[in-house]
């Protein structure tokens, strides 16, 4: 019986392996036939792209499913299952364990890549056939690099003979819902930019970009951007509650790896609007699409190659790192060469004055790309300097804050004005006049913050004021757009309802950023902390709240031992909440984790952590934090991601794409 079971499991992993290899051959055919077909305008070969993309996705889904099955039944004859799982692990984390390791996460990466390819095949019925064929061919070309990488350096289906009795377990820090969902979200973002990239390369091959191209690139970029925003926010949230000191952004190279494509992707999102609406900045938009996806690949390289641990560790175990590095050079270098050859031929018909919506969008592009470049410089500098024997330096948060914040302040200042400007030519003075209310409220906020928290950092005050400046300006723009107070209310309401969803997307997205900025200013500037040893009955006051330690108890969880503390929190004598932070120890990995107890309120988070016992009278080391407005940051991020979703549901994306550009868009859409 057991032997039979063993054979059955053996079979499923091998079938998965086979499906993976088969998918690579389908991918190879999907590169050659559609691309050659498009070059020779041979319809049947071009048509091969669509069924092939779907077949590739189904084969990879099967391969991924078989790996998941191996994790669920704890088939330790698979090396990757042995190294990352354990029979004691809850089922949920056995499943998320599939991608909580190198091999499995690369399989997830390519599964998502093929999913986007299949989505183009599925939704792309009315794309011009040559464009569709080329997009699918390029998409598959990227995939081939990753198939080779997985099969030759990171095969999740490698066996161990003889199979061990039990697994080595999973890093306890990874046994967490936030972190379990973080990689799929992040990959949906990273890999989603591959579509923009494939469209960019296809456009270079076609030698032509029209408004229909812009209409296609924008929604895919929006979707990828929304997932990446969500993924970054989720990772930051995880760090906040799991690492136990209330920090939420560390400028860690691994964080930067996901932040760089986000910055470039944000620029792409805005420049694609210009291609779609004004038939201008085409070459630049193609360039941004190439850069954004290249930064996604660079992020993968940084995280996957081990180069971050040390340049020398990378050099001593180079197989994986060198492979991704070559892939990165081929993809980026190849596409930039193609761009250099074909890019200048892109004809732009849209003209504009500096003070115009186009001008504002270009200011956005300037700042976002500079920010991405600065983060890139800071992240890679230590690696290059070390590789060139220039000595070892560390580039940490002080550098990034020094460079990044001065870029973002003018960015936010300009964000308030940009949406007020019309396309082609605008009156800056008139736009500024309409912002009088925002200006007054900004000054009032700055003064109020100064009065309440004069001992806090100036930057927190500036951040708060900028958040108000941006938030109010968005509301002003909205009320003007619907002519509130100028026309009868019913008429304004009618305008509000008829506002295109893409406009709503912009309004909500910018509002989300304003809220997030307020959260960052608050949590970054006015955080309060108390570290001490507390015996039962002791209390400490943090952020106006009194935390009384009521003692701690020992206990057991499913696969760990725990210490649980209890803190009664009161404010001016009134009870608020009782917090139960935990300290967990996982025997399989002999590694402790802290489970901070967090009580989230509109004005801030109460955050308590319990540490090691001190002495014998039941005293413990405790850490208490008051993190003002921190939830605004996640709320703002969620609003930004949701705003992209609202924009995606805009009628012009749902109804489909006209093959040729028709008459100029109606006035309402132009305003968006």
């Amino acid at each position, binding site marked *: 019986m057991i032997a039979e079971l063993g054979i059955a499991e053996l079979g499923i992993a091998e079938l998965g392996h086979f499906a993976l290899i088969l998918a690579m051959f389908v991918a190879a055919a999907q590169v050659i036939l559609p691309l050659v077909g498009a070059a020779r305008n041979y319809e049947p070969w071009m048509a091969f792209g669509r069924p092939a993309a779907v077949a590739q996705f189904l084969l990879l889904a099967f391969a991924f499913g078989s790996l998941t099955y191996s994790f669920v039944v704890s088939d330790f004859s698979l090396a990757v299952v042995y190294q990352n799982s354990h029979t004691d692990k809850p089922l949920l984390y056995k499943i998320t364990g599939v991608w909580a390791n190198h091999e499995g996460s690369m399989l997830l990466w390519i599964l998502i890549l093929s999913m986007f390819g299949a989505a183009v095949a599925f939704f792309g019925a009315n794309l011009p056939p040559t464009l569709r064929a080329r997009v699918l061919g390029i998409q598959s070309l990227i995939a081939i690099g990753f198939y080779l990488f997985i099969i030759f350096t990171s095969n999740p289906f490698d066996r161990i003979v003889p199979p061990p009795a039990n697994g080595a377990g999973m*890093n306890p*820090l990874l046994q967490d819902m936030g972190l379990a969902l973080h990689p799929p979200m992040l990959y949906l973002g990273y890999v989603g930019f591959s579509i923009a990239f494939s469209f960019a390369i296809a456009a270079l091959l076609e030698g032509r970009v029209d408004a229909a191209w812009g209409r296609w690139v924008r929604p895919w970029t929006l979707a990828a951007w929304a997932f990446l925003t969500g993924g970054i926010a989720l990772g930051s949230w995880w760090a906040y509650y799991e690492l136990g000191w209330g920090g939420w952004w560390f400028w860690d190279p691994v964080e930067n790896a996901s932040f760089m494509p986000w910055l470039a992707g944000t620029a792409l999102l805005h420049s694609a609007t210009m291609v779609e609406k004004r038939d201008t900045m085409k070459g630049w938009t193609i360039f941004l699409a190439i850069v954004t996806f290249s930064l996604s690949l660079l992020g993968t390289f940084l995280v996957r190659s081990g180069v971050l641990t040390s340049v020398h560790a990378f050099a001593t175990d180079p197989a994986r790192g060198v492979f991704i590095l070559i892939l990165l050079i081929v993809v980026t270098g190849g596409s930039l060469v193609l761009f250099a050859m074909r890019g200048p031929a892109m004809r732009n018909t849209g*003209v504009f004055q500096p003070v115009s919506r186009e001008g504002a969008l270009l200011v956005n592009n300037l700042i976002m790309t500079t920010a991405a470049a600065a983060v890139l410089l800071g992240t890679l500098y230590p690696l290059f300097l070390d590789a060139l024997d220039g000595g070892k330096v560390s580039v940490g948060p002080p550098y990034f804050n020094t460079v990044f914040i001065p870029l973002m302040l003018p960015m936010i200042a300009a964000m308030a004005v940009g949406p007020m400007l019309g396309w082609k030519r605008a009156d800056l003075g008139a736009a500024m006049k309409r912002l009088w209310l925002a200006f007054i409220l900004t000054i009032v906020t700055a003064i109020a913050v100064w009065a309440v928290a004069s001992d806090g950092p100036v930057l927190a005050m500036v951040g708060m004021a900028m958040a108000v400046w941006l938030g109010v300006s968005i509301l002003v723009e909205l009320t003007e757009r619907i002519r509130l107070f100028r026309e009868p209310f019913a008429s304004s309401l009618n305008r509000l309802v008829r506002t295109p969803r893409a406009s709503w997307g912009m309004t909500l997205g910018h509002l989300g950023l304003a809220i997030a900025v307020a959260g960052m200013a608050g949590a970054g500037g006015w955080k309060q902390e108390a570290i001490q040893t507390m015996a039962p009955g002791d209390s400490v006051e943090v952020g106006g709240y009194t935390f009384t330690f009521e003692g701690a108890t020992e206990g057991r969880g499913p696969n760990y031992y725990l210490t649980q503390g209890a803190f009664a929190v009161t404010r001016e004598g009134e009870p608020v909440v009782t917090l139960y932070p935990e300290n967990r120890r996982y025997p399989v990995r002999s590694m402790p984790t802290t489970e901070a107890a967090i009580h989230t309120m509109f004005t801030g988070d109460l955050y308590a952590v319990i540490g090691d016992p001190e002495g014998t009278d039941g005293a413990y080391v405790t850490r208490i934090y008051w993190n003002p407005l921190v939830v605004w940051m996640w709320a703002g991020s969620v609003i930004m991601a949701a705003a992209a979703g609202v924009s995606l549901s805009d009628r012009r994306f749902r109804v489909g794409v006209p093959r040729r550009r028709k008459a100029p868009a109606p006035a309402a859409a132009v305003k968006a």
Partner: protein
Amino acid sequence: MIARRFLIGAMLAWTFATATAFAVEPDEMLDDPVLEERAREISAGLRCLVCQNQSIDDSNAQLAKDLRVLVRERLVEGDSDEQVLDYVVSRYGDFVLLKPPMKPSTYLLWFGPILIVALGILALIAIFRQRGAAMIAVESLAPAALSDDEKNRLAALLDETDTIDKTGGSA
């Protein structure tokens, strides 16, 4: 090997090898809150040498603890912030500073972003000029206000056509 591969490949995760809490312990802290505040600020700028990208203020590694204690000892002895940093750098090198010092090998790091912004602004001006000029060209095709000179020429031309029309009409 497995542990190392795990660490490297473990995920897109963040700092986690030494991520569990308990960086600054109560017994390390100084009684003088002003001095302790300075110690915290200095610690936040010093790298934990055995961790991946963590400051000694955030790390629970033994070496980080030793450094935190060292920083506090120097402060208690009356060192200025500068002197403490200089002392730590003299022992561990520039690598320990999370904010790299300004020197020839880091000029590109510090001035790079300014250079990029400058180039970006130049590019932006070039685009604005080109598109602005193109816009003027496009708009000059459309009826625009005419200069006096043009008006005179137009009037003259119209007179000519009038004459032609009249002559043509009479013929």
